[in-house]
């Protein structure tokens, strides 16, 4: 489903250029849940954002469901319909109600009729357990509720892949659970997911594979059971000692 070959992303602001993603190759098959962990600044978020072209990568190849993102003939907007993304800071549209947040892109991107979009939105809001907040504006919702709306918004496009960029990092601790529950349910339904997170519990229970990144490289790629009990890399061992 996702295939990444020798991906390179260089940030060349002031000072010396930083290779945020340094020659990364990996793949995620259909229905697989991959969790990416690593210390901050390790390039895991940048890597994830390269997967739907939010970051323009410098070199390498990203292939989503057979479509090469770097190909000049590829329409990136059409690929992005198939790749849902959930952000750390939710990024709900504050001038739209919860309901409109979920219907807007269906209408203008998928060109669905109002009735189709409304039905889909209601079904998804029910699924993430927040249907009663549909007419409210996002500012009235708690962080956890907003993040669940953001997940519903992404799912409304019927994506083949879901990317989660630290979806629980900006939440109060008691709200982390409700978001993780939704994600877990999604994983059970067979969604292909790439998740950047600091929730080791989620990684252990839900992920099929854990990628450990540091300094722009994937240092370790292992099933969670193996990774959490016997990490091979010294950097991974040091990291786990810090967070567990």
């Amino acid at each position, binding site marked *: 489903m996702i295939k990444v070959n020798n991906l390179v992303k260089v940030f060349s602001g002031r000072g010396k250029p930083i290779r945020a993603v340094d020659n990364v190759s990996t793949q995620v098959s259909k229905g697989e849940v991959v969790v990416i962990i690593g210390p901050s600044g390790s390039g895991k978020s940048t890597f994830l954002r390269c997967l*739907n072209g*939010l970051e323009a990568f410098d070199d390498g190849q990203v292939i989503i469901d057979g479509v090469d993102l770097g190909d000049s003939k590829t329409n990136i*907007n*059409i690929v*992005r*319909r198939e*790749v*849902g*993304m959930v*952000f750390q*800071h939710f*990024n*709900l*549209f*504050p*001038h*739209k*109600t919860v309901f409109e947040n979920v219907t*807007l*892109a269906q209408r*203008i*991107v998928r060109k669905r009729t109002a009735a189709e979009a409304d039905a889909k939105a209601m079904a998804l809001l029910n699924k993430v357990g927040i249907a009663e907040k549909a007419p409210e*504006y*996002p*500012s009235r919702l708690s962080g956890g509720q907003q993040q669940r709306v*953001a997940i519903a*918004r*992404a799912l409304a*496009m019927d994506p083949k892949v879901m990317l989660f960029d630290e979806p629980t990092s900006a939440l109060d601790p008691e709200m982390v659970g409700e978001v993780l529950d939704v994600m877990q349910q999604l994983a059970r339904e067979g969604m292909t997911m790439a998740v950047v997170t600091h929730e080791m519990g989620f990684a252990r229970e839900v992920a099929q594979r854990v990628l450990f990144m540091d300094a722009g490289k994937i240092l370790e790629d292992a099933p969670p059971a193996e990774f959490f009990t016997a990490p091979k890399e010294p950097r991974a061992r040091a990291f786990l000692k810090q967070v567990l």
Partner: protein
Amino acid sequence: MPLKRPSVQWPWHGLLALILLGLAIGLWVATKRVNYEWRWARVPQYFFYQAEDTQAAPVAGTINKINPNGAYSQVDITPANGGQAVSLTVETDTLKVKIGDPVAEGDGIGAQRHWKIGPLSWGLWVTIWISFVSGLIGLFIGLITGLCRLSPNPALRGLAVFYIELIRGTPLLVQIFIFYFFIGTVLNLDRIVAGIGALALFVGAYTAEIIRAGIQSIAKGQTEAARSLGMTAAQTMTHIVLPQALKRVLPPLAGQFISLIKDSSLVSVIAITDLTKSGREIITSSFATFEIWFTVALLYLVVTSLLSQLLFWLERRFARSD
């Protein structure tokens, strides 16, 4: 003792009243010193007045009959050369002839009165509509320029910067002259068109900067979220970024349009009869210099306060989603 003490306000209100009273007295004394005679009674006629239309005899002849009918009277004239009698209607109290009077062609028989809009009202209307039209065009220009200013295309960006710098770096008065005397001559523009054009370009440059700042103030995450859903850059701009940006820049935009109403007084230099020009013209006939300028100022104040109330109301309406 609690940190929060009841604060005593009334002495300060008293001080404020005292200062305002002092100003008023100062003004009064100052006008006394220059021996100015206030003639406020002359002002209202410049808003609305009763115009008298003199009704003249269309033919030479004799007044045959006067038929009073309340405020109006019907006057019949028998032409001297025979022929059909002619009848005129005039207001009774303006009647200048009696039965049997001979009249020559063109002699005044009486007058009809009707209310007319005075120069102050007319000038006010011109100021309002010129400001409205140039504000609307300016908003459009500003929107386009603001978007160009943020375009990744260097040509569009360069043009936008050039336009903004050009307009912001020169006085509006000079721009109006250039627009009227140069562009207006070359393109054969009407003075009103030239005036509106100059004001629209002027306000457009400032609006562009306001809109640019508004767009830039919207968090990048909004664009990223919209793009990640597959929206194009244009869809993201129209559905997500611009609605939020415009809501945010409403207060500075309001300030800009209030300035526009005041700046529109400068078009009086190219002989557009706006409120300011009307005021100047009235003074030459009424000699009520102080009264007219105070009235003109008050009229501008009324229009700008109404506009700021309107925009304040809009702002509150948009605040629903906060």
